[in-house]
């Protein structure tokens, strides 16, 4: 008989906010086999395009996920706009950038907290979430919703941010930056954290690229994919810095996200500076006919909304390929040969979002 322990890891597990299941096969605490299974959150709402008009589907697209909600909505809208050749007003595009980046801040801070929790640093979790509340406060103040913003619409955005609010933004961002600096310093420099992250779940640059890793998961291995560089929306007018780190371990992925917090605040500053006055939406008439693979950069990486319409109010197909889905194969590679204590850390290091993944 082998000296193995088989652990049904999840679906209910305190370290996983979302249900996934992994058959963990351990020897002592070393993972010799880790086979994930998903499907607990599959709702099948892609098929709802057949029941909801393409304009109302935004509300559903937004609820793909409560963490990266805004970008889902915006990406969906941008996809439709591409098919229908709608020119979205400048201001709306900038607003989308601002909310997108706040969304990224919220997501990354949330992740930093959960990640800290996964390696048993409760105080850091609390700290990250405390800071995150500031971001949510801003969200609520400008959109009316804390986590589901609901300001996307085909042809623009549903709400404007007053110029006074935008003026106050710089100071807010400075405060935020300071707080985040204190936080990320711990993540990046504390040796007890480093001990848990360095050389854990390493994936090489080559593997990361060919296994389809995206977002910070890829960038942590030195693969500089960042869809914002492709310049959708207003991003082509902003200076997007792509953060990469070369080691490919959990520490690198953490470092990428930690540093991206500051690129996000930087982008918001740029956007606030450049945002023009003007209308925030255009009237949409007709219905989409055609198809488009709309890609955008989510906090977790490249998101693809494939939309296909046939000229009716109802789309033929919406297919959402989320960053987590494509980060799962690299995750399987990362888990090989790690320790049980590393499992939550590695799993969280790709920042999994199952709700996105399974739709």
């Amino acid at each position, binding site marked *: *008989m082998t000296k193995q322990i*088989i652990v049904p890891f*999840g*679906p209910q597990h305190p370290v996983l906010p979302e249900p996934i*299941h992994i*058959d963990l096969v351990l*020897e*002592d605490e070393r993972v010799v086999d880790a086979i994930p299974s998903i499907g607990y959150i599959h709702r099948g709402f892609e098929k709802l395009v057949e029941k909801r008009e393409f304009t109302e589907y935004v509300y559903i697209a937004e609820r793909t996920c409560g963490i990266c909600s805004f970008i889902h909505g915006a990406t969906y809208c941008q996809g439709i706009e591409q098919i229908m050749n709608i020119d979205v007003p400048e201001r709306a595009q900038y607003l989308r950038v601002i909310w997108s980046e706040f969304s990224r801040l919220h997501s990354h801070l949330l992740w930093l907290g959960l990640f800290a929790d996964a390696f048993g640093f409760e105080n850091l979790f609390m700290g990250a979430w405390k800071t995150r509340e500031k971001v949510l406060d801003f969200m609520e103040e400008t959109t009316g919703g804390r986590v589901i913003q609901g300001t996307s619409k085909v042809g623009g955005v549903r709400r404007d941010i007053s110029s006074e609010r935008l003026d106050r933004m710089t100071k807010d961002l400075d405060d935020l930056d300071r707080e985040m600096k204190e936080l990320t310093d711990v993540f990046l420099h504390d040796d007890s954290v480093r001990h848990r992250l360095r050389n854990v779940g390493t994936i090489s640059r080559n593997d990361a690229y060919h296994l389809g890793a995206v977002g910070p998961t890829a960038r942590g291995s030195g693969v500089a994919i960042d869809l914002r560089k492709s310049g959708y929306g207003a991003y082509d007018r902003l200076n997007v810095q792509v953060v990469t780190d070369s080691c490919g371990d959990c520490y690198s992925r953490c470092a990428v996200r930690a540093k991206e917090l500051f690129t996000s605040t930087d982008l918001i500053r740029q956007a606030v500076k450049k945002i023009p006055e003007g209308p925030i939406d255009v009237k949409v008439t007709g219905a989409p006919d055609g198809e488009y693979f709309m890609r955008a950069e989510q906090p977790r990486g490249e998101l693809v909304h494939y939309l296909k319409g046939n000229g009716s109010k109802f789309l033929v197909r919406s297919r959402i390929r989320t960053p987590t889905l494509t980060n799962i194969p690299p995750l399987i590679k990362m888990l090989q040969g790690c320790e049980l204590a590393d499992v939550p850390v590695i799993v969280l290091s790709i920042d999994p979002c199952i709700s996105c993944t399974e739709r």
Partner: protein
Amino acid sequence: MIFSGGSLVHILDLLGYLILFPLIAAIFLLFERRDSSRSLIVQLSAVAIGIVSLLLLVLGYNRDTLLYAVGSEQVGQVMFFIELLMVAFILYLAVKHRKTLAAVLVLLQAGLLVWFETSLSHGLHVANNLFVDQFSIIMALIIGIIGTLICVYAVGYMETYHTRHPEVRDRRNIFFAILFLFLAAMFGLVFSNNLLWVFFFWEITTLCSFLLIGYSETEEATNNSFLALVMNLLGGLAFLAALIWLVLSDPSGRLLDLNYLLTTGKALALVPAVLICFAGITKAALMPFSSWLVGAMVAPTPVSALLHSSTMVKAGVYIIVKFAPVLSGTTEGLMIALVGGMTFALASFMAISQNNAKKVLAYSTIANLGLIVACAGVGTYNLMWVAILLIIFHAIAKSLLFLCVGTVENRIGSRNIEDMGGLIVRMPRIAIMMFIGMAGMFLAPFGMVISKWAAIEAFIQAPFGLIFIAILAFGGSATVFFWSKWMGKIISVMREQEVLEDTVKKEKWVVLWILTGLVVVVCLIFPVISWVLIEPFVLNIYGQTAGLAQANLTIMIMMLCLLMIMPLSMLFYRKGPHVPATPYMGGRPMDGNMHFAGSLGNSREVVLSNYYLEKMFGEERLFMIGTSMCWGLLLIAGIMLVGVML
């Protein structure tokens, strides 16, 4: 000649009886092939031997060392002759199995023996060939009670063994004959005052163990038996060297009188002491030689029980403890103690990485022998006390564990600890016995912990004691680890398992219950044992003696009682309706068959194994470290010894 104050029985008769009676039983058993009468002979002999050893206790406990002049030139000659026969026999087997090293060693030994006999033995005269003191009474009790109990158990065991292993040639008559021969040799060893006699019996145990280990005649068994042989022969050579040295220093042979040697003082005794301790180290399977004991686990379990709890290895530590006063305070003694200490720590560590139950027991044995030797090597009076305590507790608990494992192995067909999951359901009584046996090995307030505790208190007053305290602290914690995880395995409750226990034979139960009872009772009455047997012995040698503080004893006995009444709380919980909850499985429910729906559409079984921490406590790595360090220590001792000799 000393008569036992007016009583009808002469102690000398008891000694003779104890040595010779098993021999006679052995001869009967050799020619008895029927199961029933074999069983009868074994049981009757066991009872007889047991009673006589108790009698010895009753008559002899309150006396000083008693010396007896028995035997004569002729006995010596007979012994020499038998030794030559043994040499020839071993040589034959060594040639047959192409074991060059064994052949070389045995030839060397034969050469030395012949030389000794022809040129040195003239004019040797040892007045008192036999003796008895409290320590040998303790040893006799261990051999006479535990040893024979194991033999009784072996009858049933071997029956099952042969049905389970039809490929093994049924040579049970020889097997049992050897077992009893072994007992005879052990009695001889602990009662002999003449070192030539001690050597003779020493060699017989070597031979017997060699034969027993190789019983199944598989290649592995043969190889391991030769491994044991080679190492023991090496020890035998050292022993012989000691004898030669003694005779050369005093051709009258007076120094061969053990009692005389020990009382004449260190100057003369140190060299032979170290040589004999080296022999003891090989026999007790301490570090550089530990592999033979581990290898010996291929033998049928009663053999392991006999060899590793109450006899063979105990002969090794017995002789070292005997020489403890000589070693005390010497650098050589310290080296030997360090060998023991290293062995204790490393063997405890290695036990962590084993999942073979017998190997765990083997390493635990090695560890405990190491501890005994560490105590003896430092050799202060209170450590001597501890060492003897350890010998007693270890013998009882370990034999119980070996026999339990044997029983389990016979039922479930595996000696892998991982297969013992849920034993508490499948074989509840055996599980409880194992539980008590293990508790005896590492839990307060049972025997081994009492000894460990006493050892700490004793070491702290001894020179260089800090090293040993550190060793005890680290090694001791490792002990906790491997015993507890095994315990945990036994009691983890899986559902839907059949009870396998009903088929266990009655006489086995009797043996097991007696041993279990002994583990507990000896704990309870150990103050008496200490007071009656150990303390006088130590007092006799050192002029002072040790013991645990009265307050502590009371508390320990209270704890033991508490521990025994705790299970009664179960009665309370059993009443009332009880629907068992399901274990937590992360939300994936498990069916009664321990399966849950896994990934990839598979159904998986929940499997739980203990940790083995191979990276840290792997056998190979630690063995390498231990062997080289212990060789180093022995080398230092050797060099110093040469210095002394010159």
